[in-house]
């Protein structure tokens, strides 16, 4: 079974549309390429993907060097809102953008919920195909 990119994008679009205060979401590879995205119009998905990858790799490195263990999440809080990076599968990083009214508890729960679905779709190919 391959990854159904349309379905993946659809899941992201639904997530962005339904989760409150979420403005955008993307799934990117650890080396900074977009797998699927639903981002605000002005954002270049290629740049977003590269930045997510750089951020996560630096975060993981900090986690290792400063003995923080495996990194579950990286959060950037700005005046205009949040950017939250979560490691989704071995091959995918999940980014969401939320506005400044977002409640972190709710956002975290939303991420957890959609992550299950994303993992299922992504791992469809990562598992060895038995003939």
């Amino acid at each position: 079974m391959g990854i159904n990119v349309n379905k993946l994008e659809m899941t992201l679009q639904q997530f962005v549309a339904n989760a409150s205060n979420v403005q955008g979401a993307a799934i990117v590879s650890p080396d900074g390429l977009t797998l699927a995205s639903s981002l605000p119009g002005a954002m270049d998905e290629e740049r977003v993907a590269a930045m997510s990858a750089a951020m996560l790799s630096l975060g993981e490195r900090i986690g290792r060097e400063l003995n923080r263990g495996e990194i579950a999440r990286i959060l950037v809080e700005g005046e205009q809102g949040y950017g939250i990076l979560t490691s989704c599968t071995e091959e995918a990083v999940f980014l969401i953008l939320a506005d400044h009214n977002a409640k972190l508890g709710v956002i975290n729960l939303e991420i957890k919920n959609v992550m299950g679905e994303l993992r299922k779709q992504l791992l469809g190919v990562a598992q060895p195909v038995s003939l």
Partner: protein
Amino acid sequence: MEIMRIVVTGPVGAGKSSFIRTISEIEAVDTDRKATDETAALKAKTTVAMDFGRLQFGKNVALHLYGTPGQERFDFMWDILIRKAHAFILLVSSHRPQDFRYARRILAFMRYRVKIPMLIGLSHADNPAAWPMEEIILALGYLSPYNRPPTVPVNALDSASVANALAVLIEAYAREQVAELSRL
């Protein structure tokens, strides 16, 4: 203790990470990830944020070496790293002429932001397919024989070769400083 920040940049696979790993006194900090783009044909892993290495130079100077990612989608890292740099090295693979134009783009990107001493390091110069130094410099846009940056062949895996490149760069940096002082 004076800190001198040197940025090592260049196209994918030129040897930037190796360069830093070879000379760093501390265990170099890398941010390698499995490559899934066209880079994968060249190597399994690629830098996605930066490399960092440190080297004591003489008694009073510590060199901080920062390696950039090669792919242009990470150009925000180029920007972050170059702005604080005192000098930079452009590493180019001598045997991949298809990279020269791209190396020139990186050069333009850096030149547009900073006016600092630089060095061109030609890696893989011992490869049978390697271009001669003069032609690579021409391909990088230095048509006139004057005002060219110092250029040296570099074997990124050999510490003597890397140290030599750094020494040439630091010399260029020192010359620049003297020239600046005499202008005052």
